[in-house]
């Protein structure tokens, strides 16, 4: 089907974009468009005004600031996938990006678009959870920061007002040589993940884990950090038994939200038990892989 008519706006700077967003009724922001354009084409979503952010160059770019890696909301997935700064500080983002869409969709797809669309399977939301992200939003009323844990309001909706726009995301870098692994399961290669898991880890000279971040996506409307698992592995030497025990936290998560039962949502047919089982296995494997990597890196130093 073809997209229903809309008025097109192409602000050349952020203040103009924010003004349009505040002033227009039934307006949508267009970032990379790799999800929004199909929604509009299927007429699952409609808008009277489309505000295209692709001309706002200030929203793109990757830089370091105050010990954090700051990425503009309109930065393309393709740019993040090849960025030396990301490779240095948040390499798991690049592990994940290779699983997101395809060459042609990564050319257009953006970080901010993915995070604002907030699909429960969005890998970059999971990466943001691992790197203790802060989301910066702006409106004509001013700007504010939102912690990654507070980003989700409900199924596919961030906790921001209608006149607010995600403008940048900052990730907390991990030290050079940390172990990282991102694993997912999907029906077809590079398709939406049903469940994915990611782990970051560092070890001391005695091979004991001294820092860990572990999360799963696809088990809720937002990524779930496995706080219990992180605490359990601290101070321990890694082993299959330890990681299996830690991953068990996925099985204890509250019943997965019925939000997946939204009308027409294809992955709604995947049962909660199946998600738990997948999450458990993938979390264990991600921990094993991240641990093995941090050990081998340490050997070389």
């Amino acid at each position, binding site marked *: *089907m*073809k*997209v*229903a*008519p*809309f*008025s*097109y706006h*192409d602000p050349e700077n952020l203040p103009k974009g924010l003004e349009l967003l505040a002033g227009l*009724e*039934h307006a949508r922001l267009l970032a990379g*468009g*790799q*999800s929004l*354009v*199909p*929604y*509009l*084409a*299927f007429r*699952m*979503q*409609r*808008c*009277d005004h*489309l505000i*295209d952010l*692709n001309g706002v160059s200030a929203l793109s770019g990757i830089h370091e600031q105050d010990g954090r890696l700051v990425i503009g909301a309109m930065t393309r997935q*393709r740019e993040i996938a090849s960025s030396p700064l990301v490779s240095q500080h948040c390499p798991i983002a690049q592990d994940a990006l*290779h699983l997101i*869409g*395809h*060459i*042609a*969709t990564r*050319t*257009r797809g953006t970080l901010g678009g993915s995070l604002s669309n907030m*699909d429960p399977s969005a890998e970059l939301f999971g990466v943001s959870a691992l790197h203790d992200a802060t989301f910066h939003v702006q409106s004509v009323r001013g700007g504010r920061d939102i912690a990654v844990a507070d980003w989700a309001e409900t199924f*596919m909706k961030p906790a921001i007002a209608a006149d607010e726009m995600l403008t940048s995301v900052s990730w907390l870098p991990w030290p050079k040589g940390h172990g990282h692994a991102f694993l997912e399961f999907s029906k*077809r*290669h*590079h398709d*939406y993940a049903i469940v994915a898991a990611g782990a970051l880890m560092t070890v001391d000279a005695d091979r004991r884990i001294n820092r860990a971040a572990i999360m799963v996506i696809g088990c809720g409307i937002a990524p779930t950090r496995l706080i219990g698992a992180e605490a359990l592995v601290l101070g321990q030497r890694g082993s299959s038994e330890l990681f299996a025990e830690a991953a068990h936290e996925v099985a204890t998560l509250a019943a997965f939200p019925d939000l997946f039962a*939204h*009308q*027409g*949502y*294809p992955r709604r047919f995947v049962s909660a038990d199946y998600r738990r089982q997948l999450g458990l296995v993938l979390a264990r494997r991600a921990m094993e892989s991240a641990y093995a990597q941090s050990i081998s890196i340490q050997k070389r130093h």
Partner: protein
Amino acid sequence: MDQFVMESDPPAKRETIPDLRRTFPLKVNGEPRVVTVEPRVTLADVLRDHLGLTGTHIGCAHGVCGACTVLMNGQAVRSCLMFAVQARGAEITTVEGLVKDEALHPLQEAFRAHHALQCGFCTPGFLMTLIDFLGSNPDPTEEEIRQGLTGSLCRCTGYQNIIRATLAAAKVMRSETMEVAHD
């Protein structure tokens, strides 16, 4: 594609339909063109219906099949997932732009030699994806080619020959690059 339904306000009813059309320039296969279309018209539709470049095919029209892939400023994009107005001022290359002086591109030659097309519907998308892919990875392994082509579907399932053709074309394209470098 996710077929879920979002809860949102219905759009306001319009009394009259305003003229939303825009006129803008774009460069297609090196030629400057000017089009006047509504902003809701996709780049794929403009290429086919307004500029007569029917080499770009539309399979699924929602970004899954890859048949409509073209290059925008040298990078592969889905032309069905972009509004044409977003390509204003950009340089677009379609499959028609691969032919130079009536000679097929080495990638096209390799597709022909290795029987990498059957019905041919998906071929333009495969070719344009591979031009971008081989540009950044001129000497790929078979596995890398498979990864690079996950976004293109061939309903005739002729993937084996597409991969063979790609390996062969990469070799030819590398030697051509070397010749240019030696000149």
